């Protein structure tokens, strides 16, 4: 056992990168759930975003265009979910699961011609001399733009939900859609927009895996990250900054256990691997005492005539 081989600076930098796909997807899902919709299709939208972003980045040579395409791809797929649950009033859980399965299959089909191709690399954001500061430089100022975008997104979602009229309306729709409807807010329209926002975020999270973290395309490459993002929203009790904390915790534990193994520490891997889920369960138990945590109309279908 030799812990000195683990460089904490590199570990934290790797952790931030590992957490970004979960962070993006979970932030999107948080907005969806705050609007009262439970979309279990995060995994499907992520994997579709991963291939859309990858394909467009390869074809155009621009990773940034790829990320925009990934957001569009995720949003378009989420429209299917919005149609099923908001127009035809289908069950949200079943529709979400169907969306995941559909996304996995569709992405495999779209990705046929992209196996084994190397995507264009997104350059790290240039902070100039800031990146040369010891310790802080490599941790804070040596990442790709999308990682910073993820952080910015959390701050924006937090500010919008807390301080703006639009955020208040969104939360009102999520807490009690009948009351919001009675006040004249367009519940279905607001929810559809929220679902599309969630889809776009999940798509970008998927593209972060295929364009930056791995970077390559393989079928099923999101490998369950979407489910972690779903758990994370609950873990964060629907609060944006806690999503950030949770994403770093979840991403960090994976990085830490890989590094500890490399250093020869004999902690059974299973404990570390299951710890994010154990923490989520504990948080759920704690939260169950506080019924106000979950949006009141979460998962319930809305129709103006009811």
């Amino acid at each position, binding site marked *: 056992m030799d812990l000195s*081989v*683990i*460089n904490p600076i*590199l*570990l934290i930098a*790797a952790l931030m990168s*590992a957490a970004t*796909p979960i962070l993006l997807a979970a932030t999107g899902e948080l907005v969806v759930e705050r609007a009262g919709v439970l979309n279990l299709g995060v995994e499907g939208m992520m994997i579709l975003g991963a291939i859309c972003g990858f394909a467009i980045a390869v074809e155009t040579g621009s990773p940034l265009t790829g990320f925009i395409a990934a957001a569009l791809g995720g949003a378009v797929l989420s429209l299917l979910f919005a149609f099923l649950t908001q127009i035809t009033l289908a069950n949200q859980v079943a529709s979400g699961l169907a969306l995941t399965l559909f996304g996995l299959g569709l992405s*495999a089909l779209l*990705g*046929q011609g992209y*196996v*084994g*191709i*190397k995507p264009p*690399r997104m350059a790290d954001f240039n902070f100039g001399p800031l990146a040369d500061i010891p310790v802080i430089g490599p941790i804070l100022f040596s990442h790709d733009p999308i990682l910073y975008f993820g952080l910015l997104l959390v701050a924006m979602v937090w500010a919008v939900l807390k301080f703006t009229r639009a955020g208040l309306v969104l939360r009102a729709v999520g807490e009690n859609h009948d009351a919001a409807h009675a006040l004249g807010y367009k519940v279905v329209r607001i929810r559809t927009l929220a679902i599309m926002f969630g889809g776009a975020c999940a798509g970008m999270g998927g593209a972060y*895996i295929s364009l930056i*973290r*791995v*970077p*390559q395309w*393989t*079928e*099923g*490459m*999101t*490998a369950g*990250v979407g489910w972690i993002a779903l758990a994370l929203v609950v873990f964060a009790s629907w609060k944006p900054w806690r999503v950030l904390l949770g994403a770093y915790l979840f991403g960090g534990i*994976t*990085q830490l256990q*890989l*590094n500890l*193994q*490399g*250093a*020869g520490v*004999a902690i*059974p*891997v*299973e404990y570390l*691997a299951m710890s994010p889920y154990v923490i989520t369960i504990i948080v759920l138990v704690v939260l169950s005492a506080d019924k106000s945590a979950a949006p009141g109309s979460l998962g319930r279908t809305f129709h103006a005539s009811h």
Partner: protein
Amino acid sequence: MKIKTLLASAAVALGLAAGAYADGHEKTKVGFVFVGPIGDGGWTYEHNKGRLAVEEALGDAVETVYVENVAEGPDSERVMTQMALDGADLIFTTSFGYMDPTINIAAKFPDVKFEHATGYKRSDNVSTYSARFYEGRAIQGHIAGKMTKSNIIGYIASYPIPEVIRGINAAYIHAAKVNPDVEFKIIWAYTWFDPAKEADAARALIEQGADVVLQHTDSTAPQAAAQEAGNVVTFGQASDMGQYAPFPRVSSIIDDWAPYYIARTQAVIDGTWESTDTWDGIGAGMVAIGEISDAVPADVKEEALAMKAAIADGSYHPFTGPLKKQDGSDWLADGEVADDGTLAGMNFYVEGLTGEIPQ
């Protein structure tokens, strides 16, 4: 009256179904259960190539079906049952974790033949087959030991099962033989296929000083991570992964299942199929060594090819004594060769490896 009509039509429908069943049964139907997607570029990709080779070689006489991304464990029983009910005559289950499910389902369908890859449990209608990947690992270890400058070799392992442990031992023995200072850092990923995790594992190893990364997982993600790092050597696993040649991928172990799959399918067609245990290596062609690229110095390449030839003609066995176990106890005396039984159930590291095998 109504019930009678219903029963009658049900009987007719059943008769039709049985007729269709008999009709569809003229072709020999071969099913494949895959652990990853066929586009993984590694393990499952090669098994699927074997499946396509069966179709090509036997043409109209066969029909193949496959299910990909089947989780190891109970869910695979459902997939196998469905295949057997759909009239498969021969089913290949292509991952270690399908072992018990294969035995269970085979007992329920005595007329269907099963072939389980890399396992050790057989029955009247279950054969096992595997390749001696460790022969390729020995050659990789030799090249890795010669190529490393930091003397740290990273190893991304999947699950602590004999097949993987054999690979680690074979690679370590031959790396240490040419470079006594070499150290192996082993990360257990607990997955066969998870590109993001494999890439993370590769990066963690590289950050800890490894300049050669060996992998026993199925995706090409570690290759991409090594390419990004710039000065790290890798080897293709299960498939050539030639898109990363000539560097970082300097060579590879390729599994060639096609001849075996064709032969076994032909045996079912001819009615000569019997439960067997096949374990072939470089000599029989089940394990191939991908081209050693120019990034490897010429003399090292020559030595590696010489070892390959010696293993192929049987004059050299990768596990030849004197060898000790990790705890220092004797395993093989000078010149003694490991027997297949010990290899098949290998659950210990050889002397020099650090760390413990997770239980």
